[in-house]
C-alpha cells in the first residue's frame, strides 16, 4: 500500500451532512472542538460556510466559533492536499538534523510550511513534536509516524509514484 492510497477519504462540502454532524454532538458538554474535528475529518477542512451553521446550532456567536477555529493550528479553511506531511521542528529533532530536514522539505516541495503544492498533492505543515524524540528527525504522513527521516527518505515519502510505505 502506498501512503497516497492510505489518504483519508473526504467528501465535498455538504450543508445537510454538516448539520447532521453538529447535531450528533449536541448532547456533549463543550461540543465545539469535537464538532470542528468531525467536520474536518469528514470534509478535510472546515468550510467558511460551516462557521455560521455551527454557531446557529450551538447557539454561539459566529465570532465565538471563528475565534476557536482560528486559534487552533489543526483547523484549516481550505481543502488539504492528498498527503498531509507534518515535519517536526522541535528541539529533539533539531539535535539530529531537523533544521536541515525542514529546509529540505520546503525546497523539495517548493512550498512554505502551511501551504499546499500547486498540483494539490501535498500539504506541508510544521509541528512542534510528534513524540518520537529518540528516533528523529520525525515526520508524519497522513498521521503515520516516520522516524530517522533524512532528505532522501523524505523525498521517497512525499513524491508521487515513489511514496511506498514499506521499509523492506
Amino acid at each position, binding site marked *: 500500500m502506498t501512503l497516497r492510497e492510505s489518504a483519508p477519504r473526504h467528501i465535498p462540502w455538504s450543508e445537510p451532512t454538516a448539520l447532521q454532524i453538529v447535531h450528533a454532538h449536541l448532547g456533549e*458538554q*463543550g*461540543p*465545539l*472542538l*469535537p464538532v*470542528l*474535528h468531525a467536520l474536518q475529518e469528514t470534509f478535510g477542512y472546515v468550510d467558511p460556510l460551516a462557521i455560521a451553521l455551527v454557531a446557529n446550532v450551538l447557539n454561539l456567536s459566529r465570532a*465565538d466559533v471563528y*475565534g*476557536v477555529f482560528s*486559534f*487552533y*493550528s*489543526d*483547523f484549516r479553511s481550505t481543502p488539504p492536499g492528498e498527503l498531509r506531511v*507534518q515535519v*517536526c521542528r*522541535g*528541539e*529533539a*529533532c*533539531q*539535535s*539530529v538534523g531537523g*533544521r536541515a530536514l525542514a529546509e529540505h522539505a520546503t525546497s523539495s516541495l517548493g512550498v512554505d510550511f502551511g501551504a499546499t503544492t500547486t498540483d494539490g498533492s501535498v500539504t506541508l505543515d510544521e*509541528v*512542534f*513534536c*510528534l*513524540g*518520537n*524524540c*529518540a*528516533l*528523529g528527525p*520525525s515526520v*508524519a504522513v497522513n*498521521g*503515520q*509516524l*516516520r*522516524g*530517522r527521516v533524512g532528505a532522501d527518505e523524505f523525498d521517497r515519502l512525499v513524491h508521487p509514484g515513489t511514496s511506498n510505505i*514499506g*521499509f*523492506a
Partner: protein
Amino acid sequence: MTTVFVPRDSAARSVGADEVAAAIETLATQRGASVEIVRNGSRGMMWLEPLVEVVTAKGRVAYGPVTPGDVADLFAAGFLDGNPHGLSQGLTDQIPWLAEQDRLTFRRVGLVDPLSTEDYQAHDGLIALRRALTMTPGQICDEVTESGLRGRGGAGFPTGVKWRTVLDASGPSKFVVCNADEGDSGTFADRMLMEGDPFMLIEAMIIAGIAVGGREGFIYIRSEYPDAVATMRAAIQRAYEAGWLGPEVLGSEHQFDLKIRVGAGAYICGEETAMLESIEGRRGMVRAKPPLPAIEGLFGKPTAINNVLSLASVTVLLTHGATFYRDFGVGRSRGTQVFQLAGNVARGGIVETAFGITLGEMIDRFAGGTASGRPVRAVQVGGPLGAYLPPAQFDLPLDYEAFVNAGAMVGHGGIVVFDDTVDMAAQARFAMEFCAAESCGKCTPCRVGAVRGVEVIDKIIAGQDTAANVVLLEELCDLMAEGSLCAMGGLTPLPVRSVLRHFADDLDQPKGVHP
C-alpha cells in the same frame, strides 16, 4: 505455538514494526511455523526498535533492531527457539540498560498486550482500584500525600494535597481531568504509557474520581498522538464492557464515566487552565489563578487535573503502599521519574529510575553519549521551557530542588542531548520563537515579550551593540519571568538565560563558529 511480540508503539512503527510483523507472519505461514504475534507496547529501548521478542522456556528473548529483510535470516537461525543471531540481545529482562532501571509506572509497558483486560489483571492490574474501593476518599488522599508523589507534568505540586483540596471543595459535581497534552519536545512517556498500558491510566482516573468525589473524567490528548487516541478509546470501550467504568465500578456503588478529548495543535493547552477552556469549547486562553481549578475548574466545578504519569504513579503507590514508593528518591523528590532520553543519543528511550541519579550518569551510562559520536555540548532538560546545561553541570542530581537551584528544571523528565555542532545562539532564538508561536496571547509579557526577544537575539547574533542588547535581553527575561500569567512566558527565559550563562561565546561570535 510460539508467541512473538512486535511492538505496536508508534515509535516502533515509525521505523518499520508493522512491516516486520507482516514479514514474520508471511514467513511463518510459508514455513508452516505456528506463531502468534502479539502487538505489545515498546520496552522503551528505542535504538533497538523494532524489537522482536520470542517467548521461550527461559524467558523472553529479544532481537533488534529488526528490518523486514532480516526476518528470513532470523527464521533460518531458529529465533523461534531463542537461538543466537547477530541481532540477538539475549533475555530481555537481563539487558543491563533495562535491568538497571526501577520500572514502577512502566512495569507493564512492553510486557503485556495493551488492550487485553486479562493480561492487565494477570500483571497486578486493578489491585490499586480494589484497594481504593475499601478506603474512604480521605484515606486515599492521605496515602497519596504520604507517598510524597508530586506532579509529574512539570510543576511538581504534591498530588495528595491537590486531591484533598478538591475533596474538601463543596458541590455535588466534580471532575477529574488527565493532562495528556504532552507537547514538550523530548518527551514521549505519556504517549508510550497510553499506547502500551492504557488500562493503568483508566484505573488511576477511577481512583482519582473516588478520592475527590468526582463521577466524570476527561483525558485530553494532543492530536499529534493519533495512535494514543485510538488505543485509549479502544481501552475505554473494553473497560466499560468489563464493568470497570460505568454506573457501578467493579460492582461497587461508585459511578465513573470517562471521555477522551482531542487537542487541536496548541501547545498552550498543556497549561491546565487553557486545557479546561479547550475542553469547554473555547480558545485555549490561560485563566488567571485564583480561583484554583481545584476549587473552580472545568465548567466552574472543582476539578482535579493530573498528568498521565502522576496518575499512573498513584496505582503503583496504592498497590505497594506509600512507604514502598517513598523509599525511592531523594530529598523532597520521592519515588521514580520516567526520564526520556532523546535527541542526539546513542541509546535513547525510557529510563525510569529513582530521583537522585546525576545528569552525567544518565548521559554516560544510559544514553551512551551521542548518536553522532561527537562530544556532548549541551543537554536541554524539561522541554522547550527548560534550561540548556553544559557537561560542566553533569554532576547535578536529577531532583526538583537541585535543578531549580541551578536555574533549571526537571519538568516532565525529557532530556535532549546536542553534540558540539549545535549553535546555541540559534537555540536561544528558537526558545523565543517557540513562545511567540505558541503564546495564547492573553498577557503582554509573553505575547509581545517573545516577539521582542527574537528581535533582540537577532541583533545580538548580528553583532549590533552586543553588550547593550545582552543587558536588554536580561531585562526582558526578568519581565517575562515575573510578569507572565503562566509558565509559557514565565519559563521561556530559562533556556534563554542558560545560553547567556553557559554558552555566551555563541552569542558573541559569527553564526556556526564556536570554540
